[in-house]
């Protein structure tokens, strides 16, 4: 499957002046239908005919082609994703899990949070600003559909080489779109990632995460329960936005023609979404909706079939009632349209008037378009029938679209080059071994695109709106206050490392999980739950499919080991240009809870209360692990070997220690170690508040290239903390108790204004800052 023409291109709705009706379809069984052009296989088309007992109408064909696409049906991933449920540790906090619009976790007697990450990769390549903007809009509606008020967003992003000319087109547009939409909605952006790698050239990854908060008793669901209830479409008018967008933009591989294809893209209206949010929340609080579902990919088709299928009911819909932006739209276009900022509500008839009134108060269009009908006799699910201009154009069992799509166990094969790749270890590369070379390496690394200061990006995002942001970028995790009365809050981090996953997808997925988990733990929060976005190449390539299966297995095993469940996520396949797939890129989000956000631990060394400074400790073990590291890439353009060892029991011990130490007030700062190793973390911790540090290397790392290894190895399971004078004994005792290895590194030093690594180098904070912060403005303009 490569390029697919758009739905609008191949489906002709008009026959003898009227639409293709169910009646007509039954009478003309042999009529040729362009199912292949819509991306359906012969056997899939046959199954549709079997389900219906006739050929599908044109509208039905469009609906099946969308709902059975990879993007909507998860047909290649389903068999693997099951593990998330099967291996998940039991949890009584999980109020809604995989399969819902987003997972919901209870965090106190009366409050719950819901969060999820999703991709909008292909649209963001075609139209960076709108693609990214509507990516934010889409995930926010998922959160809204659960009954939650969205309270923050995050944006894990990946681009091609930083100095590639197309990155200069894509990155500013994507960042502008994320900011433009999120800022206008009044959602603080509390973190994300900006990663550059040539493998994302032509396939940028634009993932967006949203978190929302709800009173436990406001939880909503999507089931269209209660025959006789009214189906209401609320929000923007329906236009020809992204018609076929799901199948074309989100499922098909890009090729050289994509430039000319110029697919129709969706344009977002954050103002409308803001009104939609307020209107929905008011309706929830007034208990006016029975069921609710957002309209995202596959638009009305998806919302109608999923709500009906979830309840086992049927539904009748009059398509003529759907408010249109363009009156000339055909039935299948209305059904496939991905116009943004719309929600589908199921309401009891006697609530309809009140619902319409609330919508009007917020200036949002709301229209009754249909009715819930009873299930069939013998307990069979009901049918979805849709009329258009007086004719029945759709008559289907909704479950056949929503739940019973094709499922494939696709062939898998370890990539042929993997053995050689793993044998080519970065630990054999020449390493800096003199103080001067080390000093130069520090400055070069902290200014490299992946490690440099991301202020150019994050300055375009509002972090303050709503007044509950306790930590945001560049901190390790975002921390949001959820309850002003008690100080209850949550911490969130998203992480992924495509290079590690390329070298070993099983371990790479675990490493991404471990990093996000650690990032949450360093703030003092207790990690609770996981979301993920799995960005991969074509599932039709057995090597990609193997990477995918391994990554899922790694993430599921990792979650089981850490005792936190996957609550939801998203799969993005076909991130591929020609035969070249992106690095397998599992992006993992971890959510933790803080009983009192006032106890959160920041990443930067604070101005110490004691003139002698705070004491700096490194927690965890440093090994010679350079394969897949940022250093190997920046200085040798090298990718090979095996990724760092992952020890989830050790991660858990570290997290427990950090949570406990934060609770008793031992920590003035804590910063997790990942890309760029200890050197990066020291520099970031110093620059954050302009407080220097004096460091002494442990003896076993004092000579030859060992200082370099200590500073740049990317061993997992480590964090750096600072502890006030007088508390170090109690702190190290706590470390011993938790079985976490610790090393005293030195002290913070406010007056010095420099970072000193004894016997190696001293660099002034100004020089560090200049090296760290000049890169993105140089590349993308001041």
């Amino acid at each position, binding site marked *: 499957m490569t390029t697919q023409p758009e739905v609008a291109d191949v489906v002709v709705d008009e026959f003898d002046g009227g639409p293709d009706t169910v009646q007509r379809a039954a009478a003309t069984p042999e009529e040729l239908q362009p199912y292949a052009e819509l991306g359906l296989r012969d056997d899939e088309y046959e199954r549709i005919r079997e389900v219906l007992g006739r050929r599908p109408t044109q509208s039905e064909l469009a609906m099946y082609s969308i709902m059975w696409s990879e993007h909507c049906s998860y047909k290649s991933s389903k068999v693997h994703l099951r593990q998330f449920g099967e291996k998940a540790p039991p949890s009584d906090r999980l109020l809604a899990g995989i399969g819902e619009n987003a997972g919901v976790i209870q965090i106190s007697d009366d409050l719950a949070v819901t969060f999820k990450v999703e991709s909008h990769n292909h649209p963001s390549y075609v*139209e960076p600003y*709108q693609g990214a903007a509507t990516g934010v809009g889409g995930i926010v509606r998922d959160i809204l559909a659960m009954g939650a008020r969205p309270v923050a967003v995050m944006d894990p992003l990946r681009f091609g080489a930083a100095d590639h000319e197309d990155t200069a087109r894509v990155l500013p547009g994507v960042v502008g779109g994320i900011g433009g939409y999120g800022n206008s909605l009044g959602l603080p952006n509390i973190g994300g990632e900006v990663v550059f790698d040539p493998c994302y050239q032509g396939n940028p990854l634009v993932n967006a995460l949203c978190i929302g908060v709800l009173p436990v008793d406001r939880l909503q669901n999507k089931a269209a329960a209660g025959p006789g209830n009214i189906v209401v479409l609320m929000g923007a008018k329906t*236009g*020809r936005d992204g018609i076929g967008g799901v199948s074309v933009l989100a499922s098909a591989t890009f090729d050289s023609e994509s430039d000319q294809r110029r697919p129709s893209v969706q344009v*977002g*209206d954050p103002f409308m979404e803001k009104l939609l949010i307020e209107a929905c929340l008011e309706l929830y609080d007034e208990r006016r909706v029975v069921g609710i579902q957002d309209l995202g990919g596959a638009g009305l088709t998806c919302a109608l079939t999923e709500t009906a299928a979830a309840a086992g009911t049927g539904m009748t819909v009059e398509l003529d009632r759907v408010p249109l932006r363009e009156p000339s739209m055909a039935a299948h276009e209305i059904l496939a349209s991905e116009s*943004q900022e719309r929600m589908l509500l199921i309401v009891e008839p006697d609530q309809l008037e009140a619902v319409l009134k609330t919508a009007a108060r917020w200036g949002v269009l709301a229209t009754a378009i249909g009715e819930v009908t009873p299930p069939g006799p013998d307990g069979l699910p009901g049918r979805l029938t849709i009329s258009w201009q007086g004719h029945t154009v759709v008559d289907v069992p909704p479950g056949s679209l929503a739940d019973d799509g094709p499922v494939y166990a696709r062939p898998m094969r370890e990539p042929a080059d993997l053995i050689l790749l793993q044998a080519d270890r970065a630990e054999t590369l020449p390493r800096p071994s003199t103080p001067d070379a080390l000093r130069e390496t520090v400055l070069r690394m902290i200014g490299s695109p992946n490690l440099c200061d991301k202020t150019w990006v994050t300055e375009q995002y509002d972090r303050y709106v709503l007044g509950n942001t306790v930590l945001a970028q560049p901190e390790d995790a975002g921390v949001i206050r959820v309850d002003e009365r008690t100080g209850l809050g949550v911490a969130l981090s998203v992480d992924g490392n495509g290079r590690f996953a390329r070298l070993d997808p099983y371990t790479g997925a675990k490493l991404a999980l471990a990093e996000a988990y650690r990032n949450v733990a360093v703030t003092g929060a207790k990690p609770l739950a996981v979301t993920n976005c799995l960005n991969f190449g074509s599932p039709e390539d057995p090597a990609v499919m193997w990477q995918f299966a391994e990554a899922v297995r790694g993430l599921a095993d990792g979650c089981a080991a850490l005792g936190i469940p996957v609550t939801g996520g998203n799969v993005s396949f076909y991130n591929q240009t020609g035969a070249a797939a992106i690095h397998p890129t599992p992006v993992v989000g971890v959510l933790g809870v803080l009983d009192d956000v006032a106890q959160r631990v920041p990443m930067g060394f604070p101005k110490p209360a004691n003139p002698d400074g705070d004491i700096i400790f490194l927690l965890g073990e440093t090994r010679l692990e350079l394969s897949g590291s940022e250093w190997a890439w920046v200085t040798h353009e090298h990718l090979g070997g095996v990724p760092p060892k992952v020890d989830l029991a050790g991660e858990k011990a570290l997290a427990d220690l950090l949570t406990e130490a934060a609770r008793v007030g031992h920590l003035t700062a804590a910063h997790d170690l990942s890309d760029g190793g200890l050197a990066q973390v020291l520099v970031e911790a110093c620059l954050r508040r302009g407080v220097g540090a004096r460091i002494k290397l442990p003896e076993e790392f004092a000579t030859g290239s060992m200082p370099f290894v200590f500073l740049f190895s990317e061993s997992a399971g480590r964090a750096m903390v600072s502890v006030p004078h007088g508390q170090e004994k109690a702190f190290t005792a706590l470390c011993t108790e938790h079985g976490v290895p610790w090393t005293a590194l030195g002290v913070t030093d406010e007056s010095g204004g420099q970072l000193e690594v004894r016997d190696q180098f001293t660099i002034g904070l100004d020089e560090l800052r200049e090296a760290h912060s000049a890169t993105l403005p140089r590349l993308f303009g001041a």
Partner: protein
Amino acid sequence: MARVVVDVMLKPEILDPQGQAVANALPRLGVNDVTSVRIGRRIEIEFAGEPDLDRAREIADKLLANPVIEDFAVHVDAAGTVKPASDSQESQPAEAPA
């Protein structure tokens, strides 16, 4: 003067939230007979020598318009010129002196 104007508008099928917001505001100004408002960009390009339409078209296609969502038209500037308030009766005398 060698001025070429490039008008860039969203393609008709693309949502124009900006135009819509303005259209929705008009009734509050007592205007009720407007059926639609669309907002695009007007770009005035001054050439050193002769106005060069082909050049302008190329610039528009490559730089000024986003062909994924926008259409454009190019013309040599004529009557429609927006002049400083002081010498154009169409525009309002500015309240603050220039």
